Each structure stands twice: as C-alpha cells, then as structure tokens.
C-alpha cells in the first residue's frame, strides 16, 4: 500500500543545463502532483554489468572504474527550488505602459512593471505584431534571439522553437551565437592546427587512459574541473582528478584565482594576472629556444613557419626578446618561477587541460594565448603519448570517440526539431553541411511519421553575431568578418571528419543586407544577453532603442532580458513535460531516457513548443498544421523520436516505456583507438592537420594571405599590449582611474545565467553574501592586500565600476586571488536600479568591453578588463535608495532574491492559479513561515 514514504511516481529527468545536449539522468520522485526529491540515477536499478559492459582504465598498477550511479551536481540536485521559484513567470505578462495600438514607451523597458493578461490576448498580440512586421518591413524585421544552452530538454528544446514558426512566416533575422566559450581557440588556434569545429584539440579519443599511463604533469591552465563541468558533465572530472593524484601525476594550476579545482587538487598553484598568459607562454618559448629544450626533430617534420616564430620570441622582429624578466612585469609571475616551469615542463611529459572559460580564452586578444598554447605543445611533441590538450568537459562533443571510454557500442541519435543556428543560404558552399537537425535516411525509414515535422524550412536571409546585436540595433548597421554559422553545427561526414572552415573567417559580412529590413522587433527565448554577453549595459540601451517596437520573451523565469520585454510568455521547465533525452556527456554510460512530467506545469506555463503553437493558432490553422507536423502531440513526438533514435533495434518501445531508460553498452575496444593526435605524431604526412600546410602553423598561411597587416592577430602570435580594439592592460592610461583587472569565470553555483535562484545554493557564501541591509549580493573576490588599500572588509557592499557602468557586489576577502584583481562570476541576475548604468544584482557582464575579441575576430571579450572597486559609502547608498526608490524597493524574496512579485504592478496579483502545486513561497513571493516580507527599507539588522 502506498504511504507517504513511497513515491507515487518516479520519473527520470536530465540534470544537465546544456540545452539539447541533454546530459545525465536523475531520479525525480513526486507525490500528489508535487516534486518530493531529486536523486542520482543508479544504473544498477534496471541494468546489470552483463548488459552495460562497464569500462575500466588501468594505469600504473591502479584501476579506475565507473561508479554505480550518475554523479549528479548541485545544479541538478537543487532544481526543485528552481521549479517552484518565486521567480517563475506563471502566466502571460504585458508591460503596463506598452500599448501595441498606441504609445509603446520603449524608454521605460527595464523600469516599468507588468500586468497579467490571458493567453488568448497574449497570443493574439504576438500574431498581430508578427504579421504587422512582415507586412510593414518584411520578415527580417524580427530578430530571433535563440541559441543553445538552457535546460536539458531535447526533443523540442528551450531554444529554437520560435525560429520554426518565424521560418514558416517567411523568415527572420537570426542572432548567430558567437563562439562564446572558445573565442581564442576558434579565432586563433584554428589557424595553427585547424581542428574543426571550434579549434580545440580533436580527435580526443582515449585521452584520459593515455594521460593516466604516460603523463607526468598536468597543467590546468585556467581550467576548473570542479566548476564548469557541473552544468554540463557531472562530477566525473572530479573523480578523475583525484585518481590522477593517486597515480602520482603532478597537477599544476595556472590561473589568477585558486579556483575550486585548485583548492583541492593542486600540487602547485601559479597565480597569474588575468589575460596575461601570452607573456608567460612567450617566455617559456624563449627558455626552450635559448636552452634548446624542445623537440627539434618533431618541429622539422610537423611545423610550418617556426623560424618566424623564433624571430619574434628572440626579439629579432621587434627588438624585444621575450625573456622571463620581460614576461614577469606583464604577468606577475616571478622570473625564477617562469624558468622553473619552462624547464620542468620540458623535462616532464605534460598535457594541458581546459574546461572552457578560465582567465584567458574569453578575454581581449584571446587568439594570442590560444595560438601560443598549441605552439608550446608542438614544441614538446604534441600527439606523443601523454602530450595532449584535453578537456574536463564536453567529452561527447564534436567527435566520434570520447576521451573517457564510456562511449556506447552504437551511437544513439535522438533527433530534435529546432535548427536555431544555421547558415544563411549562399554564405557557405553547399558541401559544408550546417544543418544539425535533419532526419537521416535511417530515421526517415524508422519514423516516417516525423517527416512532415522535419520539413525543410527556408533558411533566414540575414544574421547578426550575438556579440554585435546591441551595436547593430543602436547604430542601425554593422559589419564583421566570418561567423557564417556556429561552427559546431557542421555535420561530420561518415568518417567523423568536418570540412575545414578557416578561410571563411576572412569574409566580410554586413547588416542589414541589401534589400532587407533592419530589426524592429525581437523575439527571445534565451533572454540572458545582459548578464552573459559583452557590455550588457549596451544591450539595455539596444532593448530600449526607439527603433525596437516590440520585444517578446518566452522563458520560465522573470530574469535578465525579460525585464526589457513588452510581452512575456510563461514556459514550463523540463520537470513539467515529457521528453526523450540523450545522455552522451555525464561520463559513466551513454543512455537514452524518457522523461515524464514530474508535476503539472507551474501556473499557466506551456512547453516551449506549445507556446509557439498558441501563437500559430492565431496565425491560422495552416500554421498549426505545419508547425506541429500535422498535429503530432508531445507523446507522439517522444514515441516516434524513440523509433528514430536507433535504440528500438535493441529494446522494444513497450520495454523502454516500462524501464524509461536504455543504457547503451560500452564499446569494448574503445581503448584500442589511437589516443589524441598520435597518428599525426607518428606520421604527419599521411595524417595531416586541416591547416593549409597540413602542419602546425607557427606562422599562419591563411592570415598571411588574407590579413597580413592585422596588428591584433598577426600571422605569428604576438603579445598585444594595446591596440585599437582594447586598452585593458594595467599599463594603460585608463588604469589610473581603473587600476584593477576584473576577471570573470563561469560560475560555480550557476550554469551561465541559469540557477541563480536556487535558494539552498544561495546560502553558500561563495554564491551569495547577505550584507548588512539583508540583500543577497553577488560575491566579489578580492585579496586582503587589495581590499585593505581600499578600506574594504569582508561582506562590505562594494561597487565595481568603469566607464560602462556600476555593479554592486559584496566583498569576499580571500587569499584565493592574486592582488590587483577582482573576480566576479558571470551570470548573476540583473537587478537594474538605473537601467543601463547601475545594477544591484551583481551582473558583471553589464560593464564588460564592447569590442570584439579583436578587430577581425568576431568574438566577445568578457574577462580581464579594467575596473576600480570601492566600498559603497552611506551617502551613496542613501542617494541610490531614495532617488531610485521604486527600483531599490522592488519586493524581493528573502531566499531567492529578485522575483515575480517585484515586477508586477500589484504584487498581490501573483496568485498561484494551479491546483495541486504548492510553491515554496506564498502568493506575494513571501517565504512560507513566520518571517516578514523582505522589503528593503525594513531590513532587519541580520548579521
């Protein structure tokens, strides 16, 4: 008999926040329509070792075996708090002073509040506005902001559903995702070693077994294996790091901060000033060249243009030898430590590890350290056993074979509907296949019911890089080089290879294109530009630009760019819907699993797909038919997508429905594959790289051919002190006013902008600090010496500022950061006090540089920029809280911070209309329990 201790229902849901890549499964128990708990999935629940063929890595007399369960992360464990967040959008909202038939008040976006409207009215307004745009300006007047990441939904993911509807209406302007986590690799390293799609080392089959057997030292260069994998992979990188230490492999961390990986795994931490790694790398090359500590034979057969590189390093080109002393002044690492590192590296078999983010790959001129890193690896015989560039995340991405041997005996392929990142027709040759989401022949045969759903929709005719959207809107035009498509969209051929795309980086592209409209309306399903992209304050300006007549956001939570929307459509979370997910990344086994709704949708929220169906209904029945593939329901999609996944060859639908998961048996011979670039190492002629010469290019053939005079990305990588794009060094004139370097990592307690409202994470001091006024501020790390110079104490409210604006944080005074630097994770939710200027939420990206990675590298630079920081004075505090009282005093949730009630004209309207769903918080965002509503002017003197 069921009692309350036995869940009435148990579902499997993805805990990944990587968007359509789905990720690892967790078990979600529900009782009476409410989520009870979230737990790791245990593989032995349904499967035996005999089925799974568990993998084992053996090295140096020790073994590493997979755990019996998925190693769930805090972001997945805490998700109940996210589902029932007081920050949820529970019903359609309209900005109170936006009248689509009258005054639109664009200047009030980010300021004015919202009223509840019906779904019928909301859908009608959307449809009317879309039609009006098309008829008045042409379909390109609608910018679709929709790309990647987001919750781990697969079939109809959180990003891309609007694109399909807009395509059916005749087109739109696409917001093209720039290579946000790989800027330096993509725009720089690609010109050294090719490496489609993003410029990081591939293939990376069998890397970690090889490292375990052969490496002596691992350089975690800006890599935090205890942070970035949490939203993407699992804790498997953590287990691997402990094992490497057990094996006696030395872990050296090079980064400005003692990051969470360094805190527990580092044998040596070398603190370095943010984004000065290129100086350190050049000095290492200097030592290797002058002391002949590199693999000359390898260079002779595997490298192109090495002499030019040597000339630059030794100062023959510019008169400046790149000595350790020269480097030390720039990067803050002592000359003796630079020499010791260079020699130790040359003596020891060394691999470099990354985890996206870190201190240099997303900074100004990130192309240079990225290129230099590959060159240093080359000088020590890249591809030799134990000499690799590896990643602590994204083990499944872009390659056939995985660095950890959990890959399946076959590769399941769960299709997905949304092709939100695709090239404009004609921008790339036809033989470069940039359509990720077509059905292949096998899938068409197995699931013919899906063919109509996957009808070929016309491609958009123009795009704007995401990192230039604000400038394009404000200035009405833009031009840039490359980024025809998010490059990981390129489909590999049967052998897993992709066509080289380096030369397309040199194509100039303009917006608007001849004959096409500029943007007058925005529809966003990824509303985080203000907190995740470059110069968020300029995004604020763009959203408030008079040329933008309508902004529609669809999202589960009221946060960030949503505040600038005129209409907000409520979306259900992954826990409130059915889905078919594809776990390739969590690192124990691959699996395909069916997720069920764990609770009814919160409020009037609908799935991403059904939000668009609502709008389609107002456009006409032909739109509904076309959008839904002739009326396929969510349940139909899950059924037929399973048929298309390939798993049905191994397990019937009936059996799958019962078990809810198919664990793919491991490929038995995965560890026989050549590790990393071993084939290039042994035989470069027959296994060339995809560079023009097939070799490691120390002087880039393509850059020399197409842009030989680019001072910011010259053919041979340089140290760039300052140039026309960026002036963000401590040597700058600007540093007199802004003498600190600000670094920004991917967050420990967030996945970019996701999960800022998990109330239990917010109790951890590295996530939020509750200051004297009761507000939970984003922590700003600062070294005690730097803090003392400014009279800043732990937990003080501080302002970080430069010419672009002011961000409020609370000081986290710590020895974990190099002096002269402040550090704030990106992705905190905006709490605009003066929109476009003063933010209380700790959204550090609001003051990041506007300029690209460099003038011809269309990426963003969001870490390693100049700021000053000061303690907020009582006078300032009083002035802000009175002059901007309405914003300052918006109701907040005591535990979750900014919330729906803060943005409603009448907070009492936030009634929960659903049956059976009990929110963690009551109607007005007030926590259940005895506490007072958390109104700022009544803040108790909590410690």
């Amino acid at each position, binding site marked *: 008999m069921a*009692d*309350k*201790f036995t869940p009435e229902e148990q579902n499997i849901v993805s805990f990944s926040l990587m968007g359509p890549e789905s990720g690892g499964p967790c078990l979600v128990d529900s009782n009476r329509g409410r989520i*009870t*708990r979230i*737990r*790791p999935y245990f593989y032995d629940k349904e499967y035996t070792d005999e089925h799974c063929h568990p993998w084992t890595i053996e090295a140096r007399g020790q073994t590493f075996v997979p*755990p019996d369960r998925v*190693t*769930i*992360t*805090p972001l997945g*464990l*805490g998700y*109940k708090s996210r589902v029932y967040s007081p920050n949820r959008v529970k019903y359609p909202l309209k900005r109170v002073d936006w009248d689509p038939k009258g005054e639109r008040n664009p200047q009030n976006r980010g300021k004015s509040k919202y009223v509840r409207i019906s779904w019928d009215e909301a859908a009608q307004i959307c449809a009317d506005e879309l039609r009006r745009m098309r008829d008045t300006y042409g379909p390109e007047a609608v910018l679709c902001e929709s790309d990647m990441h987001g919750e781990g939904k697969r079939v109809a993911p959180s990003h891309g559903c609007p694109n399909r509807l807009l395509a059916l209406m005749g087109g739109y302007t696409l917001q093209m995702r720039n290579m946000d986590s790989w800027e330096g690799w993509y725009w720089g390293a690609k010109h050294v070693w090719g490496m489609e799609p993003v410029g990081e080392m591939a293939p990376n089959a069998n890397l970690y077994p090889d490292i375990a057997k052969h490496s002596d030292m691992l350089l975690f260069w800006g890599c935090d294996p*205890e942070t970035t994998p*949490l939203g993407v992979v*699992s*804790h498997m990188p*953590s*287990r691997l790091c*402990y094992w490497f230490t057990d094996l006696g492999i030395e872990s050296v961390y090079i980064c400005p901060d*003692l990051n*969470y990986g360094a*805190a*527990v795994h580092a044998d*040596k*931490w070398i*603190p370095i000033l943010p984004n000065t790694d290129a100086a350190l790398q050049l000095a290492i090359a200097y030592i290797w060249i002058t002391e002949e500590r590199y693999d000359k034979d390898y260079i002779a057969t595997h490298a192109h243009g090495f002499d030019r590189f040597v000339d630059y390093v030794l100062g023959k080109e510019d008169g400046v030898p790149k000595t350790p*002393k020269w480097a030390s002044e720039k990067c803050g690492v*002592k*000359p*003796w*430590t630079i*020499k*010791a*590192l260079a*020699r*130790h590296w040359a*003596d020891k078999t060394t691999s470099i590890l990354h985890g996206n983010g870190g201190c240099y790959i997303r900074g100004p001129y990130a192309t240079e350290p990225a290129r230099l890193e590959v060159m240093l690896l080359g000088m020590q015989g890249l591809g030799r056993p134990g000499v690799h560039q590896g990643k602590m995340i994204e083990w499944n991405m872009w390659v056939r074979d995985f660095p950890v041997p959990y890959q399946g005996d076959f590769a399941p392929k769960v299709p997905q509907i949304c092709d939100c990142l695709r090239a404009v027709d004609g921008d790339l040759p036809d033989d470069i296949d940039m359509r990720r989401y077509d059905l292949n022949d096998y899938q068409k045969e197995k699931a013919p019911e899906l063919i109509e759903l996957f009808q070929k929709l016309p491609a958009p005719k123009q795009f704007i890089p995401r990192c230039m959207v604000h400038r394009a809107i404000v200035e009405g035009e833009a031009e840039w080089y490359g980024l025809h498509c998010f490059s990981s969209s390129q489909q590999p051929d049967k052998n897993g290879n992709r066509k080289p795309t380096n030369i397309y980086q040199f194509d100039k592209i303009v917006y608007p294109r001849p004959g096409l409209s500029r943007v007058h309306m925005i529809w966003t399903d990824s509303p985080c530009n203000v907190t995740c992209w470059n110069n968020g304050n300029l995004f604020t300006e763009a959203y408030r630009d008079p040329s933008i007549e309508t902004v529609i956001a669809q999202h589960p939570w009221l946060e960030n760019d949503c505040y600038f929307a005129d209409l907000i459509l409520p979306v259900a979370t992954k826990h409130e819907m059915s889905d078919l997910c594809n776990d390739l990344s969590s690192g124990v086994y691959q699996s395909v699993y069916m997720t069920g709704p764990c609770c009814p949708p919160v409020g009037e929220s609908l799935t991403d797909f059904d939000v668009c169906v609502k709008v389609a209904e107002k456009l006409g029945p032909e739109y509904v038919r076309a959008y839904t593939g002739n009326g396929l329901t969510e349940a139909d999609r899950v059924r037929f997508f399973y048929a298309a996944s390939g798993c049905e060859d191994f397990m019937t639908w009936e059996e799958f429905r019962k078990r809810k998961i198919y664990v793919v048996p491991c490929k038995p011979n995965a560890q026989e594959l050549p590790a990393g670039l071993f084939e290039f190492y042994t035989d470069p002629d027959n296994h060339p790289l995809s560079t023009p010469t097939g070799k490691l290019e120390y002087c880039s053939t393509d850059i020399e051919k197409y842009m030989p005079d680019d001072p910011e990305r010259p053919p041979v990588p340089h140290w760039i002190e300052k140039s026309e794009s960026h002036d963000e060094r401590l040597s700058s004139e600007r540093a007199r006013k802004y003498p600190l370097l600000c670094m920004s990592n991917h967050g420990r307690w967030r996945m970019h902008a996701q999960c800022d409202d998990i*109330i*239990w*994470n*917010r*109790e*951890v001091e590295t996530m939020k600090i509750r200051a004297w006024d009761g507000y939970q501020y984003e922590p700003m790390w600062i*070294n005690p010496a730097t803090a003392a110079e400014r009279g800043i104490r732990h937990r003080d409210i501080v302002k970080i500022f430069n010419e672009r604006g002011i961000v409020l944080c609370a000081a986290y005074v*710590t*020895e*974990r*950061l*190099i*002096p002269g630097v402040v550090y704030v994770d990106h992705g905190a939710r905006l709490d605009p006090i003066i929109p476009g200027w003063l933010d209380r939420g700790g959204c550090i990206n609001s003051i990041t540089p506007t300029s690209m990675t460099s003038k011809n590298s269309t990426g963003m630079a969001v870490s390693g920029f100049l700021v000053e920081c000061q303690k907020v004075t009582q006078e300032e505090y009083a002035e802000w809280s009175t002059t901007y009282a309405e914003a300052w005093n918006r109701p907040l949730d005591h*535990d979750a911070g900014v919330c729906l009630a803060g943005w409603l004209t009448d907070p009492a309207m936030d009634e929960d209309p659903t049956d059976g769903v009990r929110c*963690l*918080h009551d109607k007005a965002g007030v*926590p*259940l*329990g*005895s506490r007072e509503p958390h109104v700022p002017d009544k803040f108790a003197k909590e410690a």
Partner: protein
Amino acid sequence: MSKVFVIDVARCSGCHNCQLSCKDEHCENDWRPYAAPQPPTGQFWCRVTDHPRGTIPKVKIHYIPVLCNHCADAPCLRAAENGAVYRRADGLVVIDPEKAAGQKQLAEACPYGAIFWNEELNLPQKCTGCAHLLDHGAKVPRCVEACPTDAMRFGEEAELADLLRDAVVLHREYGTSPRVYYRNIPGCFLGGLVYDPVEEEVIIGATVTLTLADGTRQITQTDAFGDFWFRDLPETTAAVTIEAEGFAPKTFFDLQTAGCPNLGDVPLERA
C-alpha cells in the same frame, strides 16, 4: 546493528551535494513521525564547512561536512524529557517531533550545534540519518547517496572497520562518543620557495630543516619549482633552516604552525 558515518576529508571536493540533498529531502517535506518539515532556509542538518588556510600562493582548502554525530552518549538524549529523543536499533539518534514540542533545551544541549530550533513549529530539529528512507528500502541517507566522490560512507561499523582504523571524531573532548567519523583531516602546513636573487633562478634541492618546539625535526628538499612543504604538522612553534651549497643558510624562528605559514619566495645570499 550499529551504523556509522565515515567521511574522508581528503576526498571531499566541497561540492555541497550533501548539504543540498539534505535540504531537498527535508525542507518543507513532512516526514513525521520521523521529522517535521525543515524551514526552506536557515537550518543545516548537514553543513559543509570550508577551511581555507595559508597565504597566496600556498593556499589549501579542505571541507568538512558536519551533521548530527548520533553520539553513543548523546547529551540531547539525556536532556530530553518525556522520551522526546530516542536511539534506534541501528544507532541513529532521532528527535520525536511530537514529544519534543517546546523542548528548547535540546537545541542547547548539543555541544556540536547540530540541533536547530524551529520557532514556527516550536520544535528542536536535526539530522535523522534519513531514517524514514532507511525504513522504506533505502540503503544510505540522501547525503551519502549524493556524494559524487564517495567521500561520505554510511554502514555497519564492522563493515567499515578498515576505514575506521585511522579515523577521528570531531571534538573528542566533549566526551559524547560520536558515531560520525572523519579520515584525513589535514594538520597544519608550512611552506616556501627558495631562489637565487642574482641569477633569478629557483634553487632546487636545497635542504630545509624544520624543528618543532618539542625538538622533533623534519627534513625535506626543495622541488623543481624551488618549493618546500611540510604537511600535517601539529599546532606548535617551529623554526626553519634553509641550506644550499654555495649559499649562506637562512633560519626563520618563532613560526606559528597554526597559521600555516608561507615563508614566501626566500632569497638566499651567495656564501
């Protein structure tokens, strides 16, 4: 039958999964008669404490998850009236949420601060070892299940005997015989880097001698980075002498190991 927790601090990455999963299980979930709901925030039946030590760049962090020790000689059990606290057959100490109403002295009785007072419910509350789950099929509490590195274990004392051999309890001096054991809590450390300021080179292989207040000595050599480390030291006063061939030796006195001193980059003069 007697269950214990064993926590390996050397394997704790500080992910807070234990703290979080405890809240996921108990906040606003009603598991009476085992436990009344925990408030949404503010109580920590399992709390991860972080311990950053040292100065840049010789900084180390370890994390210690702390929870109710389910003491064999539990002060809360003695302070309870009316049988409000009881020990189960498996050794877990549980507060009865009905009988304990109003018994604020229970929260005060615990020297570890593991019992929280719930003002709204007028009730002392703490970790139950997820007894409600163990009695319904679960093998381990939520915190243990969620631990991604297996740093946290729960099981029969006899089965975990190997792990218990070198384990300690927190604050043994409280004399409550805790049933939560810890392994590898690191002692103090002391470190530095030795270099030649003239050549601007680290000195590899310098002999570094540590002398503790009780006269015991430890000797190490600087590594490829010129670094030396002494780990797992007791809290005491120490002296360090650095010697390298061709250089004048250097001695540091009155070093308090409790602060995990970092001697920084130490220049040696040519002899």
